[in-house]
């Protein structure tokens, strides 16, 4: 059964299977971000289409994509800094419940939304800092909060844009476990350039260089692919110079 299938076509074609962690990797400038932007509705692709649960959602504005079941995180952390961690997530749960246009009655009165938000924080291990202001979180926790906000939307597919960017090794480890556990609730499309991190948690890996896909398949197959090794290692050399 194909549940939460997603396809972006334009040289690049990929399909996220239900319950999978599907990673899109490649060196800087490989076109990952462009592909990500086309899928998440930031820019309209010149050709090709994006399908979500079989429906054509190409070029839809962000808020419609969310109601169709696609949530995303940002590479550069964007949380609501002045609000508490709980309120950050509660905004998302209220949005999903469709009550963000309600002009009467206190937002705190929506205890159902707050309860769900608290549940998600607990799931991701952020419940300890629920009442802290988001700006005061450590960098790693902010990244997790990003995921918590997206998860609160109960997406069928969750798009993660370099979730471990700027994280320490320990934090990265924790995040990797987290992503793996999320896949029980939603499909994940992960964009990364850290090959090592991706190998451990992905069901399928798609490798891009210079705007096209050079390999796609399970981690074992992809990591054994000589073209991937060449392209990837060559590119790594290119960065360090």
């Amino acid at each position, binding site marked *: 059964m194909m549940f939460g299938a997603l396809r972006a076509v334009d040289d690049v074609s990929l399909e996220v299977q239900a319950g999978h962690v599907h990673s899109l990797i490649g060196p800087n400038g490989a076109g990952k971000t462009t592909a990500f932007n086309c899928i998440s509705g930031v820019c309209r692709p010149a050709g090709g289409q994006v399908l979500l649960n079989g429906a054509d959602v190409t070029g839809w*504005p*962000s*808020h419609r994509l*969310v*109601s169709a079941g696609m*949530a*995303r995180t*940002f590479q550069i952390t*964007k*949380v*609501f*800094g*002045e*609000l508490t961690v709980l*309120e950050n997530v509660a*905004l*998302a749960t*209220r*949005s*999903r419940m469709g*009550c*963000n*246009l*309600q*002009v*009467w*009655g*206190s*937002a*705190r009165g*929506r205890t159902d939304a707050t309860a769900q938000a608290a549940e998600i924080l607990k799931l991701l291990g952020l419940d300890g800092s629920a009442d802290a202001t988001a700006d005061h979180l450590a960098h790693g926790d902010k990244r997790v909060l990003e995921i918590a*906000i*997206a998860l*609160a*939307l109960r997406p069928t597919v969750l798009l993660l844009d370099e979730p471990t960017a700027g994280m320490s090794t320990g934090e990265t480890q924790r995040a990797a476990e987290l992503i793996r556990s999320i896949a029980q609730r939603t499909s994940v499309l992960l964009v990364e350039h850290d090959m090592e991190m991706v190998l451990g948690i992905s069901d399928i890996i798609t490798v891009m260089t210079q705007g096209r896909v050079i390999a796609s398949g399970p981690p074992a197959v992809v990591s054994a692919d000589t073209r991937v090794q060449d392209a990837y290692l060559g590119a790594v050399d290119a960065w360090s110079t």
Partner: protein
Amino acid sequence: MTARETGTRLLLAAAIALLAGLPFVGVPQFTITLLTEALIFAVWAMSLDLLVGYAGLVTFGHAAAFGLASYAAGYFAREVTADFFVALLVAEAVVGLVALTTGFVVTRVSGVAFAIISLCIAQVLFQVAVAWRSVTQGMDGLVGVPLPSIFGVTLGTGTPFYLLTLACMVVTYLALARLVDSPFGRTLHAIRTSEDRAAAIGINVRLHKWIAFVISWAIAGLGGTLMVFMKAGTTPMSLHWAESGNVLVMAIFGGIGTLLGPVVGAISFVFLRDEFTTRFTAWQLAFGLVFVVVVLAFPAGLAGIFSRAWNALWRARS
């Protein structure tokens, strides 16, 4: 309810009671007139706070909503009936229509572009008020607006009108305080912090900004209606960019994003301007200086300074 919230409510109730009691304890008529003007400005400044402080949309054209309502209510009151609520309804219909149409286009942009396009809209209305002489009497302005009546009783100038204004101000505050605490109000805050993020949690950013814009204009319309009755007329200057600047000064000086800040800002503005213009030739220089210093050093305004002291007081007690 925490002790602090109760304390805040008691303080507000005391302030309202004090304002309502002023005309009956021998406060001079001149001061009451100034206060009436200040409270009308307070309504207007709170409506601006919804846009600037909550929705994050800085506008240099908020005089448009205020002046437009003054013209609509004043013209209707003079030509048809001076019933306050009917005139208010007519003014709101006109303001609402213009806000719905211009708001639909202007909320497509934000930041500096929004500030300047909203200024353009106000200038268009200003020019229309100047040019459409058969209705507006051009630069001479609309004159001969009768005293308002409520349920057939004509309201005298002075104390009765002052109390009506105070009631409107209090109702506006209570309504806006509920609005900004509602899911819609919290969503506006989210949009102000990050439009991208807000859109990514499924919020229709443009729709929310549009609604906030229309609500803000409608409340400014209440202020404009009160003002045209108070002054018995209006001129194109009510739509001028300098008026839009004045209301921004009130809101920012008082402290945006607090609702009560702009009220305090409006009252300070009216009384300071009165002091400055009578005693000091360079009031504009002084006012500009105060404004620049507030924006640079105290972005939270008077309310920020006050609430810090108020919080410190409660911390000290607990």
